[in-house]
């Protein structure tokens, strides 16, 4: 069982980007270093696969590559599983940009340090939801606390999201529903396995 993380319902996510904007407002990021991004898959609606959206930020991995590789120990994994980056210890060497296989840490040219999603620990510790989760208008993006068990139908990986470096991201998905989407999703999964 992993620590705290996100659950993304691929059927409900419409790729609107409200989560991206809410994160910006909450965490005061300038445009170049958004912590969350939304990646459309098959916006051209090819019949070979379904259209869905991956809203991704930091996955607070069980074995974070950023943490293992950081020379100054600027990353810390809290008991609840959240991986936080301590900017005051960051050298700006950008090694974590290389080691993270998801593209999560972002270097800020102006500050000379990297930054990334910290699961809004300041909100979570106060009993609130992370800003992105609270803002999702279709309730597709959910927060899974460390103590909770993800839903039984949740999966760890979907087409478009894999774990090539064995980091064990704490991100779960509910796969698309709806008659047509289910079929396409199944076909896509098979095609990838070939």
């Amino acid at each position, binding site marked *: 069982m992993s620590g705290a993380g996100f659950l993304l319902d691929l*059927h*409900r996510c*419409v*790729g*609107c*980007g*409200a989560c*991206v*904007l*809410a994160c*910006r*407002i*909450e965490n005061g990021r300038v*445009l170049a270093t*958004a912590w969350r991004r*939304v990646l*459309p898959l098959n*916006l*051209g*609606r*090819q*019949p070979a696969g*379904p*259209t*869905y959206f991956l809203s991704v930020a930091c996955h607070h991995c069980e074995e974070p590559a950023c943490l293992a590789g950081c020379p100054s120990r600027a990353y810390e994994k809290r008991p609840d599983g959240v991986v936080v980056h301590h900017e005051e210890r960051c050298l700006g060497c950008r090694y974590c940009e290389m080691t993270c296989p998801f593209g999560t840490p972002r270097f800020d040219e102006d500050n000379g340090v990297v930054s990334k999603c910290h699961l809004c620990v300041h909100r979570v510790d106060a009993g609130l939801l992370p*800003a992105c989760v*609270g*803002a*999702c*208008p*279709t*309730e597709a993006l959910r927060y899974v606390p460390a103590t909770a068990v993800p839903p039984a139908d949740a999966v760890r990986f979907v087409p478009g999201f894999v774990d090539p470096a064995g980091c064990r991201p704490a991100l779960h998905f509910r796969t*698309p*529903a*709806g*008659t*047509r*989407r289910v079929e396409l999703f199944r076909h896509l999964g098979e095609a990838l396995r070939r």
Partner: protein
Amino acid sequence: MPAPRTIRTVCPRNCYCTCGMLVSLDEHDRTVRIEGDPGNSATAGHVCLKGLSYARRTTYPDRILTPLRRRRRGNGFDPLTWDDALDEIVARLLATRDAHGPTAALYYEGSGSHGALGGLSMAFWHQFGGCTTTFGDLCWPAGLEATRLTYGANLHNHPRLTTDSRFILIWGHNPAETNVHQWRLILDAQARGATIAVIDPRKTDSTDAADVHLQPRPGTDAALALGMARVIVDAGLHDEAFLAAHAHGFEAYRRRLADYPLDRVAGLTGLDAGAIRALALDYARTSPALLIAGFGLQRHHRAGQTMRAVALLPALTGNVGVAGGGWQYANLASHCLRELPLPPEPPGMRAVPVSQVARHLETLNAPPIRAAWIERGNPATQNPAAHRVRQALGCLDFVVVVDQFMTPTAELAHIVLPAKTLFEEEDLVTAYWHPYLQWRAKILDPPGDVRPETEIWRALCERCGFDTRYFPTDRRAFLRSLLPVGHESAIDELPLRALDLSGHGDVAFAERRFPTPSGKVEFECDEASTRWGVDRVPEYVPLDEGCDAPMRTRFPLQFLSCKTRDRIHSQFGNLDWVRDVERPHVLDIHPEDARPRGIVDGARAAVWNDRGRIEVTARVTPGIRPGVVHVLEGWCHDGDPDVNALTDEGVTDMNHGATFYECLVEVAPA
């Protein structure tokens, strides 16, 4: 220094959701959080990406903060004091009136910002001696009238009852993008086992999630609706008890159905007969069933009759006045405010159809339009034949535009006045999807030299020696006086929560009392004929510029220009935060249409007809019906195609709407 605070307000955009918002400011008056107000049970604690972007929009660097005057030589504008701006405006308007008469001035207001105070502009114009305004609406009026003729009123169930539905038929509508709160409820219903069916020539975010998707030829929906009705009646699945008690003219309607056998309808719509039949039977057999129709369904010449045909399906199947059922198009329950007190309207006021602004700017006489005042709108890109609107505005003697940003319309102005944002003046805001009246709070003083429009009009009245008492000094007291009789005390509660003052319950027409002449649902309607000159019973009439038009030999592709979730028409898309997440405005074209024309995915394509020509990047996709092409509407920045160079200044068969989707084009590599 002010304390950090959270204030409840409402988003006043032209949008179904009209979200209740909670805006939090820090001690420096910076917006640090925007959340939905959980107290509005329809929008339920969320806003959308556009609502969140207000944190950026209200302080955006490009925002106009002072009056501006166009340079006499060269491009660009120079700042102007209010005194100089108002003096010049008064001088020019009076000069126009003296030379040509008051109706030589066009007053154009768009739907850019909703609120009761917006109507106060007429306090100036009535005292000015009148002006030329617009009538009709670019958006939804045909459907409104069709619903009124059929059911007597534009009311529908409270959105939260969506989850009671077992079958949701979405027609000409894309709620996943344009009504995200409704979409959440539809997904909830689907999770509880409801079937979701969508009728749309395009593949959209809504159709992707659906269980059933039909892609008819645009403009044939009346035939489809009547064909489905025929299937339902032939199968004996119509609700005879309901019809006996609450239908007027059912026999005439039934006779009309004889003209719509399944094979004919399949041919007309380009759909598979089996699919039509299956949809009709599923809809009729599943109870309760909800039919949500969008505005896209009625953007053509046969709009009213089409909407009547579709709107009758819930009545046919007894899905009226039940939770989880109904005909859902627009809910005007919150439109309960009293009339604004205004000076009497002078004789000779003139009005032109809003879908024909270009034509009338070009050709009106006695007097011609010589000056224009444009606020809360962007006709230079948003109206049909927009390029001709631009040209015509450019020929006027004097143009004033009130806006937050330098839009293409503002660029044609002689004087631009800075517009307030939703945070900067209180008002009352109605809605058209949920029944709530909401208070728009004044959260901040307008920045820079910005003044709310009410102050602009007051100042103009002062300079002209007009009576200024129509403009409130105490807005709260003034708005209180607009509340419906008996509900004045609500003014204290409105700042805290959304209120339903309509007296209608959650279920529309629960008592099956319909405010029509017959007191029943009108399958046959006299007023349709006497007022609008259309058949008393709905029928399918092909579009003039549709899939069966002779013009198709030259322009074989039907052109749609639908809405994106990234914008409200031409608002929001200029902001960097929104550009960051927005989808590209490309030409969607099916491979069957692209291949013979040599259109390559990602290459530039020219789209043209007799009215105009645009160039846009092509996306070759199976996500659209062959024979149909699509480009998103809503011009916000230079990357956006000018779709309204192609659209026609048509008027709908009912109620003076626009015909944006009745448009034939040809496409070729650019």
